């Protein structure tokens, strides 16, 4: 049982939400865009969206400057 986060294998945790995964991976909310199996997850849904087993999560991290 496992997921991939930015192609890196990571343990799957039952009942873990996007918010909890971001915190476990020490990504800085809200400076990210998150996709699960290719689908964009709106920020408002992070606390209610559970990470499915075997899923591929992409966390696109943005850094300031323009």
């Amino acid at each position, binding site marked *: 049982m496992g997921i991939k986060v930015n192609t890196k294998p990571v343990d799957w945790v039952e009942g873990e939400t996007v918010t909890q995964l971001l915190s476990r991976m020490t990504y800085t909310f809200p400076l990210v865009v998150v996709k699960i199996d290719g689908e964009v997850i709106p920020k408002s849904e992070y606390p209610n969206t559970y990470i499915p087993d075997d899923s591929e999560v992409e966390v696109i991290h943005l*850094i*300031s400057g323009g």
Partner: protein
Amino acid sequence: MVRERLARSSVGIAGLGGLGSNAAMALARAGIGRLVLVDFDVVEQKNLDRQAFGLGQVGSKKTTAMAENIAAVDPDIKVELHDLRLEGGRMEVPFTDVDVVVEALDSAETKAVFIEEILLKLPKKPIVAASGVAGYGKSEGIRLRRTGNLYLVHDDDAPSSDDAVLLAPRVGLFAHMQANTVLEILLEGSDGD
């Protein structure tokens, strides 16, 4: 063939700072037929270290100043100006009818909100974003990542602009990589002559 296709294309640019002003000029020189430019700000003298404006434009709206600079290169390019601040919840509005969107905003938080809104509300629209432009040197760390319709020119090891200077060479590299990626998207399937 390439030039005809570019002349029939349209590109929207969100933000006319270091990224957006330089990407706009590159796209104008490449002969994109129509550019939709969005910014709420005014040109300041301190912007001239990296943004494609001149001293005589200090105090002008960035949108109108950019339109002047584009017209000075190619007066046939159609330029549509939106002098407004992109507000969460309706950020996609100026970009509904362009072929490709360029994210050229400043703060990471605004970038994240903008990219998410475009991907969710205009799911077929390619968006070319940039992240990690601050600092100088380390050109070898700049990469293009593609995920679905999102193309991100990024350097994940770069500092935030809160902690490091923004300067023309590195910002220009990112802006031109964005513009180059836009051409690749627009010309997909072309034989390149």
